[in-house]
C-alpha cells in the first residue's frame, strides 16, 4: 500500500470487525525525532495471547473466506522497510493497540495520503463508532471526534454529503496546520 492513510484504514477495519465502540487514531511526527508514528487503538474484543503472537505471521486470520490475514503483516513490513518499528498489544475483552512507525525522511516511507478522507468516510460509514483523530507535532495538537460532531449535528446524519465534505476540509486543515513543514509531502 502506497499511503500510510490506507494502512490506517485497513487497521481500522480490523477494529470494526472486533466490534469496537471507539477507534482512536493518533499520528505524531516531528523534526526532532525524525519519525512518523501512527497509533490505532480500539475497545473491541481484543485477542488472547496465542492469537496475538500469531498475528504478525501472515498465516493467521479469523476470516473465513481466505486462510491468510494480510493487513498486519503488510503494515509491519512497510514499517521495517522504512526504518521504523511495529508493535501490537491486546487484551482479550478490552481492546487492541497497534503502533506503527516510519522513518520520516526514509526513501521507502509511504506518504501520509488522504487521511482526512479516510477519517471522514469512516465516521460516515460507521456512525455508531466514535472515530477519534489526534495529530501531534511538537507542542501543536489537533483533535477530532465523530461522536462530538454527531452531537452537534443532532438529527442530521454524519453520512450527509455536505457533512462529509465539510469534515474532509476541516481535517485537511488540521493536517496542514500540524504537519506542514514537517512532512515533505505537506506544504508548510
Amino acid at each position, binding site marked *: 500500500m502506497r499511503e500510510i492513510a*490506507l494502512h490506517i484504514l485497513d487497521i481500522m477495519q480490523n477494529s470494526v470487525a472486533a466490534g469496537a465502540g471507539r477507534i482512536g487514531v493518533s499520528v505524531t511526527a516531528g523534526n526532532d525525532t525524525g519519525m512518523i508514528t501512527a497509533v490505532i487503538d480500539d475497545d473491541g474484543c481484543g485477542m488472547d495471547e496465542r492469537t496475538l503472537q500469531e498475528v504478525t505471521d501472515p498465516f493467521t486470520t479469523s476470516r473465513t473466506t481466505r486462510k491468510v490475514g*494480510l493487513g498486519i503483516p503488510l503494515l509491519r513490513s512497510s514499517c521495517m522497510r522504512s526504518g521504523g518499528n511495529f508493535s501490537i498489544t491486546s487484551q482479550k475483552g478490552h481492546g487492541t493497540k497497534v503502533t506503527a512507525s516510519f522513518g520520516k525522511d526514509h526513501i521507502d516511507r509511504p506518504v501520509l495520503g488522504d487521511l482526512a478522507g479516510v477519517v471522514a468516510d469512516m465516521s460516515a460509514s460507521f456512525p455508531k463508532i466514535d472515530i477519534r483523530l489526534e495529530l501531534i507535532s511538537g507542542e501543536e495538537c489537533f483533535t477530532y471526534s465523530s461522536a462530538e460532531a454527531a452531537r452537534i449535528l443532532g438529527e*442530521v446524519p454524519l453520512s*450527509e454529503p*455536505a457533512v462529509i465534505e465539510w469534515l474532509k476540509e476541516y481535517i485537511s486543515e488540521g493536517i496542514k*496546520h500540524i504537519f506542514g513543514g514537517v512532512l515533505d509531502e505537506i506544504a508548510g
Partner: protein
Amino acid sequence: MKSLAELEQIRQRTLDQIKMRTNKDGIRIVVGMATCGIAAGARPVMNKLVEEIGKRKLGDVSVSMTGCIGVCKLEPIVEVINADGTKVTYVKMTPEKASRVIAEHIVNGRVCQDLTITAAEEAEK
C-alpha cells in the same frame, strides 16, 4: 481555522433539505474495504462514486464502506442495493467503471451486466 461548531450551520441548512426528501429508502452503494480491496484501489473507486453522485445531485443515493465482501481476486468490489432490496455485485472496479455504473445503473436503471460478478464468473469458465 475552522471549528467543529460550524457544523451547527450545516445542521440547520441540511435539516430542511432532509425533510423535503420524499423518498427515504434510496439506493445504497457499498464498497468493500478489507485489505485486498484497499490494495486493489477501492478508495479511488469510492471517491469517484461520491464525486459523480455529488455532481448529479442524486440526493437519495448513499455510499459507504464495509469490511470484507469476499473474493480477493475480484476486488475492488462494489455492491448496489436497490430500493426494492435487490442487490447487484460489481467486480474489478476502477474509477472509470464507477462513472459508468452511476450513469447507467443508478441514473437510468440499466444494470452494467458486463461488470457484474456473474459476468466475471462466466468468463472464468
